[in-house]
């Protein structure tokens, strides 16, 4: 079925198609229309979902954590301050190894109050043990949300996952989307699997004090290993989805015109669409530029980055958030891996699009041209970190 949907409605449709049993959320702009749509589906009898309409985001994630621990597929969604408010539970869910899926409609953080997109909220979760996917368009939002249920419930992973979509650019903008039918999704998604289920009569205790700190330390490391395992699972599940629907996205990353490129732009989220246009026009002008889109921030696709960056003359990483006092988080991940792998490729970090500032393909073109000239003139980057406030 091909219909026009906003990114938020894509999430709602995916949740329904995945046969989620319990949803709990607290309204926050720009996430609100996700839960509104799900509520409507429930009230109209289109979806068999229990809604727990909680009093805060901390409780929203707590409630779905309880439901998921008790054995059912569960979902929540939030943004910005809501995500920060539930941050304690974000950690708790991952360390308890309970698979569930959360949509994060990326929005900047106050003060001042501002509802537009940047990535400070979602990037703040990157150490917690969750898988973090970022979508470029509404079709990818729908597809990746469905896939995340399968990926997170894989025994090699058993971790929760976030589907990230940019505020308004995706969440409130309609695009034509292929919505798979229920049979297709049913054939793709198996029964829910999880490492343990809390049930009456079975005296299983989750989370009491450890007698052995080394064991506790291994549990912590095992979360890291679960995310590393997820690299393989994400790739496999994406291929399965591709066979079923004709939409294979490239697993952890997607390369656009990288094969014969000398310079690589790197980005995540909706502005990757503008980067594609920039690549095309830069190519027309003779700049050998390619684009590496990271579809997952966690697990960080280090191997893919290595393969793409190896042999290139320079990389420019676009971050839509900054780890204040250091640099953009994507850059930090990418540069440290490149350096550790002794690639010897100059990397520049451009921090742009903060607080919802619009950055279009012209901006990308100009920034990349300057970057190419800088590297070709100097042999390296003069300043590795550049702030692009916008026009």
């Amino acid at each position, binding site marked *: 079925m091909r219909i026009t949907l906003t990114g938020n409605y894509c999430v709602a449709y995916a949740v329904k198609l995945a046969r989620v049993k319990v949803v709990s959320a607290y309204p926050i702009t720009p996430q609100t229309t996700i839960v509104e749509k799900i509520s409507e589906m429930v009230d109209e009898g289109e979806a068999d979902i229990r809604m727990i309409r909680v009093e805060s985001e901390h409780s929203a994630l707590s409630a779905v954590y309880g439901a998921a621990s008790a054995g059912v597929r569960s979902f929540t969604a939030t943004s910005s301050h809501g995500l920060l408010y539930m941050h304690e539970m974000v950690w708790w869910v991952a360390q308890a190894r309970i698979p569930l899926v959360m949509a994060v409609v990326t929005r900047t953080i106050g003060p001042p109050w501002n509802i537009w997109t940047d990535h400070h909220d979602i990037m703040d979760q990157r150490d917690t043990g969750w898988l973090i996917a970022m979508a470029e368009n509404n079709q990818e939002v729908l597809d990746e949300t469905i896939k995340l249920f399968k990926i997170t419930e894989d025994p090699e992973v058993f971790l929760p996952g976030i589907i990230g979509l940019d505020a308004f650019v995706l969440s409130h903008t309609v695009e034509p989307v292929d919505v798979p039918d229920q049979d297709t999704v049913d054939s793709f998604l198996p029964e829910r699997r999880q490492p343990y289920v809390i049930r009456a009569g079975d005296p299983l205790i989750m989370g009491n*004090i450890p007698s052995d700190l080394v064991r506790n330390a291994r549990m912590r490391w095992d979360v890291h290993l679960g995310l590393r395992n997820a690299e393989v699972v994400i790739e496999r599940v994406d291929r399965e989805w591709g066979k079923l629907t004709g939409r294979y996205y490239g697993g952890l990353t997607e390369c656009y015109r990288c094969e014969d490129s000398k310079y690589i732009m790197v980005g995540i989220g909706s502005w990757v669409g503008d980067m594609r246009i920039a690549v095309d026009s830069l190519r027309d002008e003779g700049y050998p530029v390619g684009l590496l889109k990271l579809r997952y921030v966690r697990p960080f696709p280090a191997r893919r980055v290595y393969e793409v960056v190896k042999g290139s003359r320079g990389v420019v990483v676009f971050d839509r958030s900054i780890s204040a006092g250091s640099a953009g988080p994507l850059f930090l991940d990418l540069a440290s891996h490149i350096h550790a792998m002794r690639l010897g490729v100059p990397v520049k970090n451009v921090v742009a699009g903060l607080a919802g500032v619009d950055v279009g393909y012209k901006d990308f073109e100009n920034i990349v041209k300057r970057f190419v000239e800088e590297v070709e003139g100097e042999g390296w980057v003069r300043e590795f970190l550049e702030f692009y406030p916008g026009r």
Partner: protein
Amino acid sequence: MDVPLTIRELPREKYVLPGHAACPGCPEAIGLRYVGMALGRRAILVIPAGCTSIIQGLSPGSGLAFPIINVAFASSDAVAAGVSAAKEVLGEDAVVVVWAGDGATSDIGFATLSGAAERGDNIIHVCVDNEAYMNTGIQRSSQTPRGAWTTTTWRGKAEPKKNMPLIMLSHGVPYVATASVAYPLDFIEKLRKAVTIRGFKYIHLHAPCPVGWRFDPSETVEIARLAIETGMWILFEAEGGRVTISPPSRPYMDKSRRKPIIEYLKRQGRFRNITEELVRELEREVDEYWNMLIKLSSQ
């Protein structure tokens, strides 16, 4: 509750086992035993940070024979709501109980509790009230009574105890009750009644703590009983908002039958420096509360 429960009818199966890590004389270990007797294998416990985080003993073992989800401090009623919803979806029988201290109930977890109560989530919240943050070392809570020493109120707490049972009654939930570790049959009957009622149920369990209240660990039950006999703690239940004074407290509706509150206070080191004036003030508060409850129960 027509035919009173007797000890002979209680199940012998144990849910608090050797290897638990409670202090000597711990009222929470006593209370958990009664939860086991009341609910048996139907119970799933959701436990936020607090003394019972420790009492369970060390993983991978445990000194409690319940299924338990340990959760972050302010999250327990929401987690329980999720567990309860999932069990209903799955068609599995379970009684989901939040076992939370006074901090997790009336302070850090209050918004979560209030939210679950207002929604009518099908859970039982037991507030095991030892009247201070005992797990972190006896700091004042909103449940600490006026005049009590804690490590954050060295000269005695200036403010009165927040009245949680009445706050929960104001939520319009179908069942609110108070209980005491000194009256196991009363507590067990209340838990069992709560199970039969759909929606949000609140039971506030008075739990004297020898470590924090400064009395000998052998006297826990005695102190708890004195609280009832002096009228400092009143056992009642409210079904559908209708208040009934529970049998153990009924004699003390008559003020002349109550022991002077000083008999309760003087047994506890935490009230060592209490002034006569403050004792009179507490006495007045006890009388006022009794009058209010008697009025509510006669409506």
